[in-house]
């Protein structure tokens, strides 16, 4: 490309909103500048800039200006800078090589309307020019707004102009962010004369090879047999492409070395020691296979991109969950959109391909208003805003409803924030008479890459995710997902699938072709790849870069050679690029050539042989021995203020602003929405959709996150998260026996190091205990783990006030997702109270379990008595509740989650916009004598339900012998929440009496302006 000499005169078109129109974008920036930095702007105008680097005539330019790029009603445009008043101007554009989605669609439109084809190297680039007005605005202010609000230096660059700097003739000038790689691709040979040499190369190239793997790698390439075989194809020492391939495949991200590790677990309190070999095998795989035997609805688990369960006779649903933490911490919007769009490729690459039907999200970040001394790469507020917007655009533009999500604040996530994304799809049970969940490659099948092209983006994303975040993490792994390109590919894949053309399909995610081709070739036992056939975004990529690039929106598909023509015809129809890049063989080898010359030749089974197992010391110490205790707090007097304040806590208050910007109804399947109730503004326990439009069956979906309990014991954190996610589904009408789960672990580094990770052994013990809880609870509830992932390094080093750095590790975190088929959606219920006069019941027992609670956190305590899950007893109650909903006895059901009874009674009242009067003395409890404990204990296994008084008898019969008590009644519209205590323990009888509308206002207040 360096040789390409531009003789074209590029043009720059500026487009602005007519001044009489309200500039919502500018206004948003104005407000953020004030809220983020306290900078007062009087006005912001955003101008869109198109830099057209193509050989077009003046007439052609005029045509595209008026016909495409200028709305005659709302916009003005000009090839000269548009004169708009300003005090400062900020220009922001992409760095070279960063995906410019509007730039590509602009080319498409221009080619179409002009009937021309852009030549190699011609392009349209988009950027923005902002005109800022504000009294006394300084250049520092402008710099802050540019660097911390408008642009992210990882992917964008900016320029600032004062009034003096600005020349209204030349404007921003002509800036062409074209990638110019003055580089001839070359395969390097990697010396392996010693372990140290290879270790040195690993460090130099950022390969993150595990030192323990190095001898195994060397032994392979030094073996006589291997050397003899390699000599025949012209190779001796390993090539860079081979070492990169091994590095990708052996990374913790791809290979889950931690979960397959050997844990030397020791309980320091009892002296008990045991070896736990491979927690994946013992706590995830074995229980799930056991449950699969018993549950015929479990279709496909533990091997594919997503797990599959039976929806009905003709359909399977598929589900998987991912995290996209490291990239989102670097560039929040780009990382998050890439995350959601990326996880949506998993169902597309499950079985012979599934259609996407639903998505979920979970964000764990530092406090939004953090103003302490630590300086994370992105302030939590900015990071959160970016992440929310990334998932919004990724989900909405994919046409997939985002129906459930969570947001959790905790200072531990300042080190690394978590972005969970979950994808659910559906596929026909059979495709042309073949089982849809099965797929394989066969010798002779063609290897096809379809979707986007390959560039330098995303190189070493996988290995970066396997490292603790530091300033030297290469920025190159950040990318911007393109839902538009992927949506086209999605529609294309479904059509070729239904024609029976797909033999195998998988996505190009972490590791790129290296992973997708490597894994798919295991089925046929070999492949030959011609790397020069891979479509590139620009010339100059080294072979190893093509092989491991994580450029997005790509799938790898295997088809029969005779199907190629029909495949490519449909590819063309859907405007999706597809290229044959090789074929599957049964040679046992991964064989890669570039222009006919071999650059990789490796035994496919090498990766599954002979690598040493990772080992961890895991030391457990009981919470009491770690110095945890129950705080000494005497009972409060002002419960009204207390409840109101807890409702306004960041982890309890309304998040309506997020749910409303996520399209949760596209596809026309919505049954239970994320926000429900009379005001359509209170969170539902779970979401339900009707994925097959002409069927009355549904899919219920929910998630839970309870990391606060990890401060006491990750066993109970895990148990409670599973229990909450289960109860959420039960509350809308799911059947316990139909629930499947997805586990997403996010853990701080567990490898002990006396200096860098002194509590690594404790974190390792927490992981072992968490996995044991996963096994125990899933077995008693009977929940097969349909899918799961782990992300192991949620730590970061943050700069402090004096130039020092602090390692910040997040709490051990599991996000547990649940999914279930609903037999008849017409029987689903919501959590909101329905009708005055209805009776309020509590199901389940409240214990003295305030440890790790929101209540203690409110005072700054951790406590000791963490909630415990008595899964066998709970299961009986859940079945009874399931049967009550099936018999349509209930008017509403709601689980009691974070914040306890006080918070969740309020939710039920707010849901109905109705008053409620309850007596705490009637709450079933295990000798709880304090009102604060009754109100805020977070005991698991509980629900609040309301019923028609006429159903009292039928209802009570169903729950005979179970913890169940009527504690009060629903009262009038806009009534009060009245909580009293008839035991009257020396206090006034009425503890709380507040209008429900006031409680709602308090609950909505914190984020109401967002």
């Amino acid at each position, binding site marked *: 490309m360096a040789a390409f000499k531009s003789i074209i005169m590029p043009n720059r078109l500026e487009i602005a909103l007519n001044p009489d129109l309200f500039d919502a974008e500018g206004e948003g920036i104005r407000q953020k500048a004030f809220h983020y930095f306290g900078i007062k702007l009087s006005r912001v105008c955003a101008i869109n800039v198109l830099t057209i680097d193509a050989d077009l005539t003046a007439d052609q330019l005029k045509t595209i200006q008026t016909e495409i790029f200028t709305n005659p009603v*709302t916009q003005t445009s000009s090839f000269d800078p548009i004169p708009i008043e300003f005090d400062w101007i900020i220009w922001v554009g992409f760095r070279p090589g960063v995906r410019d989605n509007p730039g590509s669609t602009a080319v498409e439109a221009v080619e179409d309307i002009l009937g021309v084809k852009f030549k190699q190297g011609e392009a349209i680039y988009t950027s923005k020019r902002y005109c800022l007005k504000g009294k006394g605005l300084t250049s520092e202010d402008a710099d802050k707004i540019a660097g911390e609000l408008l642009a992210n230096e990882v992917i964008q660059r900016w320029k600032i102009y004062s009034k003096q700097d600005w020349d209204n003739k030349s404007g921003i000038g002509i800036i062409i962010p074209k990638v110019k790689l003055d580089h001839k691709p070359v395969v390097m040979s990697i010396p392996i004369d010693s372990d140290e040499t290879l270790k040195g190369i690993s460090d130099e190239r950022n390969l993150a090879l595990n030192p323990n793997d190095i001898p195994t790698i060397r032994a392979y390439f030094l073996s006589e047999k291997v050397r003899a075989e390699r000599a025949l194809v012209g190779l001796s020492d390993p090539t860079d492409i081979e070492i990169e391939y091994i590095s990708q495949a052996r990374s913790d991200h791809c290979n889950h070395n931690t979960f397959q590790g050997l844990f030397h677990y020791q309980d320091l309190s009892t002296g008990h020691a045991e070896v736990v070999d491979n927690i994946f095998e013992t706590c995830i795989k074995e229980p799930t296979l056991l449950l699969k035997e018993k549950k015929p609805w479990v279709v496909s688990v533990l091997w594919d991109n997503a797990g599959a369960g039976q929806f009905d006779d003709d359909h399977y649903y598929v589900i998987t969950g991912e995290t996209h933490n490291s990239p989102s911490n670097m560039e929040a919007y780009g990382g998050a959109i890439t995350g959601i769009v990326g996880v949506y490729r998993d169902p597309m690459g499950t079985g012979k391909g599934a259609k996407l039907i639903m998505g979920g999200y979970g964000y764990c970040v530092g406090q939004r208003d953090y103003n302490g001394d630590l300086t994370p790469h992105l302030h939590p507020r900015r990071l959160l805003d970016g992440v929310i917007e990334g998932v919004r655009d990724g989900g*909405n*533009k994919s046409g997939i409803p985002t129906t459930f999500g969570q947001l959790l604040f905790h200072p531990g996530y300042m080190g690394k924030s978590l972005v969970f994304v979950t994808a659910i799809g559906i596929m026909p049970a059979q495709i042309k008479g073949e089982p849809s969940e099965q797929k394989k490659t066969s010798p002779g099948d063609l290897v096809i890459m379809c979707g986007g092209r390959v560039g330098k983006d995303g190189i070493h994303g996988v290995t970066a995710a396997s490292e603790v975040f530091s300033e030297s993490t290469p920025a190159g792994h950040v990318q911007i997902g393109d839902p538009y390109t992927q949506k086209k590919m999605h529609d294309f894949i479904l059509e070729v699938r239904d024609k029976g053309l797909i033999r195998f399909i998988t996505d190009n995610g972490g590791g790129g072709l290296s992973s997708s081709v490597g894994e798919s070739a295991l089925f046929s036992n070999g492949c030959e790849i011609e790397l020069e056939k891979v479509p590139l975004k620009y010339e100059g990529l080294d072979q190893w870069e093509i092989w491991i690039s994580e450029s997005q929106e790509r799938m790898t598909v295997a088809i029969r050679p005779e199907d190629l023509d029909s495949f490519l015809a449909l590819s063309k129809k859907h405007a999706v690029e597809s290229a044959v890049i090789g074929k599957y063989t049964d040679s046992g080898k991964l064989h890669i050539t570039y222009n006919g010359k071999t650059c990789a030749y490796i035994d496919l089974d090498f990766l599954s042989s002979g690598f040493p197992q990772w080992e961890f010391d895991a030391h457990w110490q009981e919470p009491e021995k770690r110095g945890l205790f129950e705080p000494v707090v005497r009972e409060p007097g002002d419960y009204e203020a207390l409840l109101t304040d807890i409702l306004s806590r960041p982890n309890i208050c309304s998040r309506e602003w997020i749910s409303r910007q996520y399209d949760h109804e596209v*596809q*026309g399947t919505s049954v239970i929405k994320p926000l429900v109730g009379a005001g359509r503004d209170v969170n539902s326990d779970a979401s339900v959709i009707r994925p097959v439009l002409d069927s009355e069956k549904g899919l219920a979906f929910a998630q839970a996150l309870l990391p606060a309990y990890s401060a006491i014991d990750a066993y109970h954190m895990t148990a409670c998260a599973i229990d909450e996610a289960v109860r959420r589904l039960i509350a809308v009408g799911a059947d316990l026996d139909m629930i499947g789960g997805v586990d997403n672990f996010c853990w701080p580094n567990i490898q002990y190091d006396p200096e860098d990770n002194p509590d690594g052994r404790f974190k390792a013990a927490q992981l072992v205990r968490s996995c044991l809880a996963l096994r125990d609870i899933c077995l008693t509830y009977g929940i097969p783990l349909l899918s799961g992932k782990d992300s192991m390094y949620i730590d970061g080093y943050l700069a402090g006030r004096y130039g020092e750095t602090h390692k910040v590790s997040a709490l051990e975190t599991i996000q547990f997702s649940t999914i279930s088929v609903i037999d008849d959606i017409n029987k689903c219920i919501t959590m909101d109270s329905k*009708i005055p006069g209805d009776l309020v019941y509590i199901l389940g027992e409240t214990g003295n379990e305030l440890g790790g609670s929101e209540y203690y956190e409110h005072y700054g305590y951790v406590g000791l008595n963490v909630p415990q899950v008595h899964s066998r007893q709970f299961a009986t109650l859940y079945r009874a509740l399931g049967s009550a909903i099936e018999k349509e006895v209930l008017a509403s059901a709601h689980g009691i989650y974070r914040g306890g009874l006080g918070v969740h009674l309020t939710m039920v009242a707010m849901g109905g916009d109705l008053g409620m009067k309850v007596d705490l003395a009637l709450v079933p409890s295990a000798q709880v004598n304090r009102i604060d404990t009754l109100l805020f204990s977070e005991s698991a296994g509980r629900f609040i339900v309301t019923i028609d008084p006429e159903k009292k008898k039928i209802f009570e019969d169903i729950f005979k012998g179970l913890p169940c008590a009527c504690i009060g009644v629903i009262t009038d519209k806009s009534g009060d929440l009245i909580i009293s205590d008839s035991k009257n323990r020396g206090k006034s009888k009425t503890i709380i009496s507040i209008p429900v509308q006031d409680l709602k206002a308090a609950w909505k207040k914190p984020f109401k302006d967002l």
Partner: protein
Amino acid sequence: MNKVNALVLAGYGLNCDNETAYALELAGASARRVHINSLIDGSVSLDDFQIMVFVGGFSWGDDHGAGVIQAVRLKTNLGDKLLEFVDRGNLVLGICNGFQTLVNIGLLPGFAGDYKTRSIALTFNDCGNFRDDWVSLKVNPSSPCVFTKGFDFLELPIRHGEGKFYSDKVVIERLFENNQVAMQYAMPKGSLADNRFPFNPNGSINDIAGICDPTGRIFGLMPHPEAYNHRTNHPDWTRDKEIIKRRGSVVDTGATAGIRMFQNAVDFFNKM
């Protein structure tokens, strides 16, 4: 009687094609999802259809303005065929991104038979964000709009970032004069939203949610009738069900308001 044939556009980032086709089928039409390229390359002909639906979604990612590139491509490649389709007395419906496309092609407002002039914009919501919510809609009983016949008030979901109806005063006045304003955002009790958020969710001038051409056969609206294809789509359905149950009545499982809008289209041909 032959079924009415409906063409539902698909591809290039559109995403409501499945449920729109389903809604049309429920309404009694025979619906076919057709990729934009199949229409452009002539492998599917408009001649075989009586209803054409421009569906919701993000065509071409909505870059350069919602519906703009879709409009350019269809205008460039189909141009006269679209006009002929309209001339033949057929129906055109544009929902959300489809509405945005219709105004960018110029099929709306279609004053005095001019189906080429762009005089209306659907631009960024005043709230500054994409928004998914249900809205109340007041229907103009005097409108010639085929799709809204028999309605006076209904609720539908909106899901868009660029739905603010905008035009100059002259155009707006003319739209009202011609009764082309078929549908306006309203308060839950039925009066006009009067630009109150979130009842008017995007800042549309005069609360305009949907307009038709002077013949009433071309209709564009921001709300999504196809997403109200089952009673359980309605946000209040669990509440309504409980109230109905207590009265001893049975839940009405007949056609939803969304489906009735499509039935109006089908009936238009069946009654001819």
